[in-house]
């Protein structure tokens, strides 16, 4: 009797246990699926946030240093901006001397620059050379743009290693870099003309914000949406301007979607959108 009773109970128990296990397993699988969706959506959203953070850190760093009045904003549209982006800071270790080529001067820079994103490259870089003019008057100071052609090793008068740069300054008639206009110690900025714009990658057909130079186009951040980069150019009063020399503030907006669809709270699959708006005040426009 005891054995029969035990078997009957075991069968009921087994059915109940199997049912419960099935329910639990189904719940667990559902929960796991949810967890996976949650994880995937979190990763996707983190990627988007990271992209926007890169935009918030990278683009302002490039834009802040511009002097729009002096031509650092070369071209501007609502979706792209071409700028003269600073790359190096060095100083002359002797005054410029007239070069062999017509219109050229030889500049000797200290071989170790004060700051450099990368080495000076005659193929891509140009220079801003500080001209003091009357040393007693800050008001007549300006910067002379110069193309460069050759870079050769040189020695500074104090024996330090230097670098001789053949430069072709663009000076107004009647002015020159020689004869005391540019002195020893004058700062020299290396710059590169770059364009920040949207482009569509041929590899994955997605849109990216790219940095375009004379020879290269490389992604800076993305993927973003098709309208993922927009610039607004403002003057000192906050009004939108179309003339590059009047720009005092550049506002940009970056919009990015998750690369893959993620499940929303209401169960739909979607690619959520996030955006970042940053306002950059140009630090180097003339002060006085």
């Amino acid at each position, binding site marked *: 009797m005891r054995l029969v009773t*035990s078997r009957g*109970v*075991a069968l009921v*128990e087994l059915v109940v*246990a199997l049912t419960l*296990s099935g329910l*639990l*397993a189904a719940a*667990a699988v559902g*929960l*796991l699926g949810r*967890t996976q969706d*949650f*994880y995937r959506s*979190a990763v996707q959203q*983190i990627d988007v*946030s*990271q992209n926007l*953070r890169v935009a918030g*850190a990278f683009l302002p*760093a490039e834009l*802040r*240093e511009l*002097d729009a*009045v*002096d031509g650092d904003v070369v071209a501007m549209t609502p979706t792209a901006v071409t700028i003269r982006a*600073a790359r190096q*800071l060095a*100083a002359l270790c*002797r*005054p410029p001397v007239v070069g062999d080529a017509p219109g050229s001067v030889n500049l000797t820079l200290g071989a170790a620059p*004060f*700051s*450099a994103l990368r080495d000076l490259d005659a193929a891509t870089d140009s220079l*801003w050379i*500080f001209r*003091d003019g*009357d*040393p*007693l008057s*800050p*008001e007549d*100071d*300006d910067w002379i743009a110069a193309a460069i052609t050759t870079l050769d090793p040189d020695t500074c*008068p*104090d024996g330090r290693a230097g670098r001789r740069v053949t430069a072709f300054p663009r000076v107004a008639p009647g002015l020159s870099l020689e*004869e*005391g*206009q540019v*002195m*020893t*110690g*004058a*700062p020299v*900025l290396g710059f590169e003309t770059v364009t920040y714009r949207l482009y569509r990658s041929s590899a994955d057909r997605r849109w990216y914000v790219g940095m375009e130079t004379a020879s290269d186009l490389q992604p800076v951040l993305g993927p973003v949406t098709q309208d993922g980069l927009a610039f607004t150019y403002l003057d000192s009063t906050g009004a939108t301007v179309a003339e590059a020399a009047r720009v005092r503030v550049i506002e940009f907006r970056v919009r990015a979607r998750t690369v893959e669809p993620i499940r929303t709270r209401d169960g739909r699959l979607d690619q959520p959108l996030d955006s970042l708006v940053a306002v950059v005040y140009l*630090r*180097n*426009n*003339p*002060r006085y």
Partner: protein
Amino acid sequence: MSCLAAEKRGIALPLVLWVVVIGSALLTVAVFLIFQEQRAGQAGRRLVHTFTQAEAGLAEALATWTPRSLNRALPGTLDSLAAVGSPAIRRLNQGLFLLTVRVRDGATEARLGRLVRVRPVRLAVTAALTSGGPVRLESDATIRGDDQPSPGSADCPPPDSAVAGVAAPTVLTTGSPVIAGSPPSIERPPADSGLASEDLLVFHDLASQATLSLAGGALQTSPATVGTVCNPSVPTNWGEPYASIGPCGAYMPIVHVDGDLDLLHGRGQGILLVEGHLTLHGPYSFAGLIMVRGGLDVAPGDSAVRLNGAVFAGGVGSQTTPPAVLSITYSKCLVSKALLSSGQLVPLRTRSWKALF
């Protein structure tokens, strides 16, 4: 009973394991997300913090800079300033500086720079020798108002237009001293306090920024070095006017003398401010600006006293027995270089702000 108990344990274990697995997965995801967000938030906060601190450091350094402390700084040297982020200032040449600041917060670092320059005290120079009292010159005196570049310096602009040779209430000459300029001499009203009121204001302004403050007496000045480096801590080191690329060639102190001064043979450069009377004994050479509230006399002798730049005095006499050899030559370049030791530091008009890599 023992058989039933064993079956119950068999069901409970997988159940517990499922719960543990699911719970761990959820916890892992939650912790991962929390850490990611925390890291991103911290990184953003550090980025903003270091950047604003660096900008504050630059602004504070600019606001608290005093020429008194930096007149001793020579081109190429690096000084640190007491401000947020301990900014460093590097003198690029006589009038230009690079201010840099580096602020760290954890792994985040902001490096910013500011190109700044001297806005010097303004001084109108209308003559090589400007005197508030009478000027007496002997035949061995030469005063030239045409702009002469600094000897041995490649950094001077082309000569500017000439100023007058002498500007004084009266000019008394014995023999045939050379007075040249455009015009050679101009008459100006006498000044009761030695210097004209506008020049006296400049005198006081410069005196308040003096690199060296001396009581007066007799001094023999010459460049002093430690090894191959100029030593500005020696009070009789007033720089080297003859070798602009030498160790003391760029050292142009503002020297304020609170009394009478006898300068024995030697040399110096910069700005010399004398409250009392200045007597120069040759051979002596000075490049820059001399302002004397009392009289300026040149002691008799064959050795020359050569002053290049500009001289302002309450009166001038070159003694006659034997005739003193005095040469005052206007140099806009030397006056400019000297004045660049004074004034205030201001950002360059444009492209002053630099993000440093």
